C-alpha cells in the first residue's frame, strides 16, 4: 500500500512540475506573437493555459492533502486522537458524497477532460485521508503549512 501511494506521489509531483512549466508556453507565445511576425497569433493560447491552470490547482490541492499543507486554524485546544479520527471519518463520508454527486452529474458533459479533475482529486483526497487516519500519528500536523501570501 505504501509503495503504491509513493508511486502516486511521484506521479502527482511529476505532473505538477510538467503542468506549471507547460503553462508558461502558451502565455509566452501570446506575448511573442504580438511583437514578432513569424509567430502566428494563435487563438488557443488563452484557453489552453486556463485548462492547464485548472489541472495545476486540482493536482496541487491533492498533494496538499497528502502532505498536510492546507492551513487549519490553531487557536483552539487540540482534540484527543480518538475524536479526531472519528471526525475525520465523518468528513471522509461527506467527501465521498461530494465526489459521487459530481461524477454522476458530469457524465454527459463535452468538456469532461477538464471536469474529470474534480472527481479524480476528490477520490485521491479520500485515499490520502484514510491513509492519514490509519497510519501512526506523525507529530505536529501543521508543520508543513506555509502560505503563498
Amino acid at each position: 500500500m505504501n509503495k503504491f501511494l509513493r508511486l502516486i506521489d511521484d506521479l502527482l509531483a511529476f505532473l505538477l512540475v510538467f503542468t506549471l512549466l507547460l503553462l508558461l508556453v502558451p502565455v509566452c507565445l501570446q506575448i511573442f506573437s504580438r511583437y514578432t511576425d513569424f509567430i502566428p497569433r494563435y487563438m488557443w493560447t488563452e484557453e489552453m493555459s486556463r485548462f492547464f491552470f485548472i489541472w495545476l490547482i486540482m493536482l496541487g490541492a491533492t498533494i496538499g492533502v497528502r502532505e498536510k499543507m492546507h492551513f487549519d486554524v490553531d487557536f483552539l485546544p487540540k482534540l484527543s486522537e480518538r475524536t479526531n479520527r472519528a471526525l475525520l471519518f465523518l468528513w471522509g463520508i461527506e467527501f465521498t458524497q461530494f465526489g459521487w454527486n459530481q461524477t454522476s452529474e458530469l457524465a454527459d458533459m463535452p468538456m469532461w477532460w477538464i471536469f474529470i479533475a474534480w472527481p479524480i482529486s476528490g477520490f485521491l483526497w479520500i485515499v490520502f485521508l484514510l491513509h492519514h487516519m490509519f497510519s501512526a500519528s506523525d507529530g505536529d500536523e501543521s508543520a508543513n503549512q506555509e502560505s503563498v501570501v
Partner: protein
Amino acid sequence: MTSALFSPGMAALILFGGFFFLLAIRVPVAFALGLASLPVLVLEPRLSPMVLFNETFKTYNSFILLAVPFFLLTANLMNAGGITDRMMRLSRALVGHFPGGLAQINVLLSVFFAGISGSASADAAGQGKLFIEAQVKEGYDLSFSIAVTAVSAVLAVIIPPSILMVVWGGVISTSIGAMYLAGIVPGLLLGLAQMATVHAYAVRRNYPVYPRADFAELVKSAGVAIPALMTPLIIVGGILLGWFTATESAAAAVLYAALLSLFFYREMGFKQFIAAVLDSGKLSAVALFCVGTASVFGWLLAYYQIPKALLSNVQTWGMGVIGVGLFIAAAFLVVGCFLDAIPAIIIVGTTLQPLAQSVGMHPVHFAIVGILALAFGLVTPPYGMCLMIACAVAKVPLRFALKDTMIMVVPMLFVLLGVIVFPEIALFLPRLFSPEMIN
C-alpha cells in the same frame, strides 16, 4: 427573496456556524469553506451541490489568477539563484553604517525583495534563515530580531508585484496595474516607519554599527544587484506601457528570473530549478484551491443577500469616506487575525465592496486600505503567518516575540491611518502615470 427556504439570518447562522465548527475540529480552512456550504446547497430546493463544482470551476477558469504561480516561481528562482545575496551586499553598502546596521539591512532587503516577490512568507522564510541567527550573534535581542524579520516581510504584499493584489483584482475586478502603482508609496512609507523604529531601538539598546562602505564598494555592489532590481521595473513598466497584461508580465518575470539565475549569476543547477518549480506549484495550488471554495461560500452569502442585511445597519450610521475607510480597515484587521489573507479578501472584501461604493470610496483606495490592513494580519496572533515562520526559524514559541512585534506594528498603524485619511498618498502615482486605469 421569499421563495428561498432559509431567511438571510438562518442561512448566515448555518453557513458561519458550520464554518466555525469545522475550523474548531481542525478541518483546513479551504475544505471548511466548501463543506460548510454543503448543507445549504443540499437543503435549498433551488440549489444543488453542483454549485460547489460550478463556482470553483468558474473561479479557476481565470486568466488573471494564473499570475499567482508565476510570481511565486519568480521569487523562488531568485532565492535559489543567489540573487538575495547580491541584494544583501547592496543593502549593506547603503544602510550598514546606520545604528543597528544589520537590522536596517534586514528591512531594506525586504523592500528590495518585495519588488521581486509578491509573497511575504517567502520573504520571512528566506530572511529568517539569513538574519535571525546573525543578528543574535552580533548582540541583538532574539525577540527583536524575530520581530524585525517578520514585520518587514509583510512589505512583500504591498510593494508590487503582490499576490494579494492579483487575487483582489481577480475577484473584485479592480485594475491590477493601478493597484501596483498605488501600493508603491504606502509600501515605502511602511519601510521608513520600520527603519525609524529600528533606529529608536538601536540607539536605546546600543546595537552595533558597520563601518561606512566607500564609494567604490557602493558602485560595485549596485552593479551586481541591478539586473535583479530590474524585475519590478519590467513587471510594472511593462503593464503600464501596455506591453503585456498582469498575467503575461508574471510569465515574463519567470523567464527573466530563470535566465538571470541560470546564465548570469549561475548558482542554480537543474535539480534546484525543478525543486523551485515543484515547490511553487504546490504552494500556489493550495492557496488557489482555497480561492475556489471561498468563492462558493461568498456566492452563497450573496445568494441569500447576507452582506446586504449586514450592511443595511452600517449604512444608517451615515459615515463618510474616512468613517467607512476606518470601518473597512477594522474589519480586515480583525478578520486577518484569524483567517489567511486570500479567503479574507474573497469573503470580507466582496461583502464590503457595496459599502465602499455607496460612499464613493475609490475602488483602488478601497483595495489598498484592505490589503494594508490584511498585511497586519500576517504578523498578528493567533494566525500571523510571517511571525509563525520567523518564530519557527528561531525555534521559539510565538508569544516569545509578541511584545517587540506589537511595538514595531504601532508606527505602521499610523501609515494605515494616513492612507485612509489622505487617499492621495495611494492614488497620486496611478493618477500621474495611468489616468486611464484609474477612471
